């Protein structure tokens, strides 16, 4: 694992509110370079909002984001983004290959059209996610897992150094989840930084090596082994979760208020 002391993403004093309700409060984060970082927290904790405000998609009251020590705006080309699958209308008339090629539009400039070189790059990315055979398939005819892979391939062609992924494993089949995690690991081993909003506590230890526990403000962050403790989880989730400390591993029962 390539891991150096540089900071891939640093966030200073970020506050976001929606209709005078604080969604994120005084967030300060430093995520080291070359890690697979998970962002975990209960519903409404502001996980997606955090990513979106860093990318400038949601207005923030205060705060700045730095990629590798430089302001995000100047580093836009080094940042890849995989939005939630449900954020677009999949009935749009286009093919899987075309969606992947959209990842190259930022690089192409204003009037240049994607050509053969771009087509090759996009096909290669589809190949990586195991979707080359479906390149010309209408996106409306893809399954949820296949749609998610298309989105991942679109981020891959961006050839970014820092990737933001918003719940890439939500509602996908087991094969897709494995395929996605394999690709993310490979990217991390190449020295890229992956910042992943995640909802499944069962897999946190297996998937991530760095963790941010979030509930409006930062509950804890750091190496996953230090952060992923029963104590911290109780702080983040409050009474919403039942914890059973089973020697080394933490196990979770589906939480109802009365158990």
């Amino acid at each position, binding site marked *: 694992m390539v891991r150096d002391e540089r900071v891939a993403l640093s966030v200073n004093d970020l506050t976001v509110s929606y*209709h005078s309700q604080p969604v994120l409060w005084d967030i300060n984060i430093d995520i080291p370079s070359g890690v697979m970082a998970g962002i975990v927290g209960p519903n409404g904790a502001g996980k997606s909002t955090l990513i*979106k405000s860093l*990318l*400038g*998609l949601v207005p923030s009251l205060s705060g700045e984001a730095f990629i590798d020590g430089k302001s995000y705006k100047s580093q*836009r*080309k080094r*940042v890849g*983004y995989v*939005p939630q699958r449900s*954020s*677009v*209308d999949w009935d*749009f*008339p*286009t*093919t899987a290959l*075309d*969606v992947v090629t*959209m*990842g190259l*539009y*930022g*690089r*192409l400039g*204003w*009037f240049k*059209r*994607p050509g053969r070189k771009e087509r090759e790059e996009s096909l290669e990315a589809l190949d990586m996610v195991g979707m080359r055979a479906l390149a010309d398939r*209408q996106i409306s005819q893809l399954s949820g897992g296949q749609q998610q892979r298309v989105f991942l391939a*679109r981020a891959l062609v*961006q050839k970014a150094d820092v990737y933001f992924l918003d719940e890439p494993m939500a509602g996908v089949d087991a094969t897709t989840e494995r395929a996605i995690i394999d690709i993310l690991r490979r990217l991390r081993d190449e020295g890229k930084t992956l910042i992943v909003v995640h909802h499944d506590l069962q897999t946190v230890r297996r998937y991530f090596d760095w963790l941010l526990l979030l509930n409006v403000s930062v509950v804890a962050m750091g190496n996953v082994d230090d952060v992923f403790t029963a104590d911290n989880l109780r702080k983040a989730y409050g009474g919403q979760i039942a914890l059973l400390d089973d020697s080394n591993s933490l196990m979770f029962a589906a939480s109802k208020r009365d158990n």
Partner: protein
Amino acid sequence: MQWLSILHDYTFQNVVIGAALLGLISGPLGSFAVLRRQSLLGDAISHAALPGVCLGFIIAGSREMGSIIVGAMVTGALAALLMLVLTRMSRLKTDASIGICLSIFFAIGLVLLTYIQGSNNASQGGLESFLFGQAAATLRSDLWLMGGITLFSLTLLGALWKQAKLVTFDPEFAHTVGLPVSLIEVLLTTMVTLAVVVGLQMVGVVLMAAMIVAPAVAARQWSRHLGAMVFIAAGVGVVSGVSGASISALSRGLATGPLIILSASIIVLISLAIAPQRGLLWGLLQHLRQVSQLRRRQILYTLYKTQSTRDQEVHNLPFRLNFSAAIALWQLRRKGFLVSQKTPCLPMSAGNRWLLTSLGVREAQSVMAELNGKTT
């Protein structure tokens, strides 16, 4: 040879060319509006063109096309921007803000219209024709104007094709790759205004929305790519424009604008019904095909099971013999998978003795193998 001589008619030529231009511009721009879920935006923009038409008339002092078009463009674009601002800044949802803008601007337009009519201006005649269009009044000079606007907007759309596509499909991602999303959204929205002013003379402000939405909706049924959709939409627009204008000219006295809209609507209905993959009829056929395939498999399966356990032909089918089952039985018999022997003393459903042929046994075995393969 009446309909041939009409081809040389000056008015008819103007109307047909104008209608074709309208289809050419409203189809492509409408495609983006429909995909961006802003179909009703066209409605609001076209209604908002009315106060501009009146203001253009008041300022120019006469029914001069240039100033009327500029006026319509200004108030149309104003309404479009107001809607964008209302949805972005306030808690209003899109439908509410469209409703507000549409009625406010249209009301102002109607007030201005009655003001002009009351002012005894000798040249005020026919300003209300912009409500429902008056295609026969189209002049050659108007056509040049309409053609110029069409050429301009299609060129702009072509130049910004990939930006328009990405902003329409996934505006948030477009933002992260550095596209000026707001600028392109504003452009796509205000360009609808250009289509509206081309349609002012032909179909008028009230029916213009249909010309934005209908060709795009029809085209979506037949297309797999955005490019194809835009081309087909332009085609549908031109065809409905030309056929509406021709029907109007041949029938003497029927209004052109509404006929254009009706032609487009017929194309929409046909497309919604029969387009492959997306059409209603297609879906229905697909459903029936699946039902009958399931029926056939069920029958094969049950006959095979009962036959192999009891080692004899079946008298009473272990399921209700309804219409779809009867069809399935008939299909299976025609394929040679089973045979029936009638016993005349019993009623039809109970009296038939069904027997799988050796061909049928093999088919049933392959069905079962497939089912088992799926469950394990």
